[in-house]
């Protein structure tokens, strides 16, 4: 059934999933600009610099910020602190913005951030069905799968199936709460601390925490198991 409908959509000209190749040159022959994204973007940047709309040094700094300055390790540090410090955890769950400011993250980065605690009985999952809203102040820019049609469409109607696809099978008696980020509020999941991590330092705990676990599509694996499931 699925295959049949996909074939129908493909025949109708709609890609079923976002193409790995950003540009299908054959579909863009009407464009006068070069079809290759690298050239097209270079031409646009050059135009906007020439017109004084953008500053190339600021562009470099923005790219550097998102490639090197922030990322999931920030979120992992917050999670590890919450695991070892119950007072901080309580603060984080009631007022995430001021709690992460304590860790040195400027409060503006945590504005309107809500942290959702996963427990053995409750599993939180974050999605943005309409676009790509994501807790980037603590996780950096969202991965492709988070922005994909496949994830955005199914996370709200079949969260348990999505979780299984990520290797996380939940028992029927666990409640699943899906958070669709429809406004300017950002959600970060506080995953469960894994078994067998009692003796680890805060630093080593942070190393266990994956981006996926803070979006809620995975649990944090026990240190002995190696990879997150």
């Amino acid at each position, binding site marked *: 059934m699925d295959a049949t409908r996909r074939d129908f959509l493909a025949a109708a000209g709609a890609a079923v999933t976002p*193409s790995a190749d950003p540009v299908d040159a054959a579909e863009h022959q009407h464009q006068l600009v070069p079809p290759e994204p690298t050239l097209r*973007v270079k031409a646009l940047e050059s*135009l906007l610099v020439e017109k004084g709309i953008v500053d190339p040094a600021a562009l470099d700094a923005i790219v550097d910020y998102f*490639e090197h300055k922030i990322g999931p390790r920030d979120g992992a540090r917050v999670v590890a602190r919450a695991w070892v410090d119950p007072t901080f955890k309580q603060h984080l769950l009631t007022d995430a913005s001021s709690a992460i400011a304590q860790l040195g993250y400027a409060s503006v980065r945590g504005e309107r951030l809500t942290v959702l605690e996963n427990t053995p009985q409750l599993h939180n999952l974050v999605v943005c069905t309409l676009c*790509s809203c994501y807790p980037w102040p603590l996780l950096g820019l969202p991965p492709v799968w988070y922005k994909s*049609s496949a994830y955005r469409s199914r996370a709200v109607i079949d969260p348990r199936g999505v979780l299984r696809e990520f290797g996380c099978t939940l028992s029927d008696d666990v409640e699943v709460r899906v958070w669709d980020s*429809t406004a300017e509020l950002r959600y970060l999941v506080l995953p469960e601390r894994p078994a067998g991590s009692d003796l680890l330092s805060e630093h080593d705990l942070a190393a266990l925490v994956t981006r996926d676990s803070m979006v809620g599509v995975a649990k944090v694996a026990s240190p002995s198991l190696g990879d997150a499931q």
Partner: protein
Amino acid sequence: MNGVHDMGGMQDMGPIKHELDEPPFHEPWEGRVYALNRSAAATGNWTLDATRYEIELIPPADYLRMSYYERWYTRLIELLVKRQMVTRAEVESGLAAKDSAKVTPALTLATLPPVLSAANPARPDANAAARFAVGQKVRTRNINPVHHTRLPRYARGKQGFVMRDHGIFVFPDTNAHFAGETPQHLYSVRFAARELWGNDASARDTVHLDLWDDYLEDA
């Protein structure tokens, strides 16, 4: 707008392609497109909501075929042209027209904030009374506007409960169209999965959406 971007609940989009240790940008041009969007937005010539609406205007077949940053590239050009900051001829040639005005960048290395916060403050300095209270049962309105909206199709005409009042926020439906901020309360509303999807859904599961006053009515 009932566009293809509003895809919550669709079922035939294929498997989720997970990539281990994915980088922020897969190609240098993606980072440039991101930075160009952020820099151009700093001119204040459009709102964050307008940028979202511009992506929603990409024809559905193109939307599905394009990668994420190709959509960003496309919408940036549309916004620049609509706000008369560039012409299509300039985009096609990559060269400024001879008589075109030169402006000063809104965002420079000197004015770049140390923390790149969201482009839109979203919380206006305004007063508005909350129409609903925490704990109250509400129903989402059954609306099908052709303009920008953040009330997804799958959650229209559905009954839920107000779990939290987030305070006053800019209303995207008007702000996207430069028709004012229409400040109003925003709530976290919880819906039973069965209310949204019927009895095949788990009786335990819920979906939470952040919804504005104007999306809600008494249940």
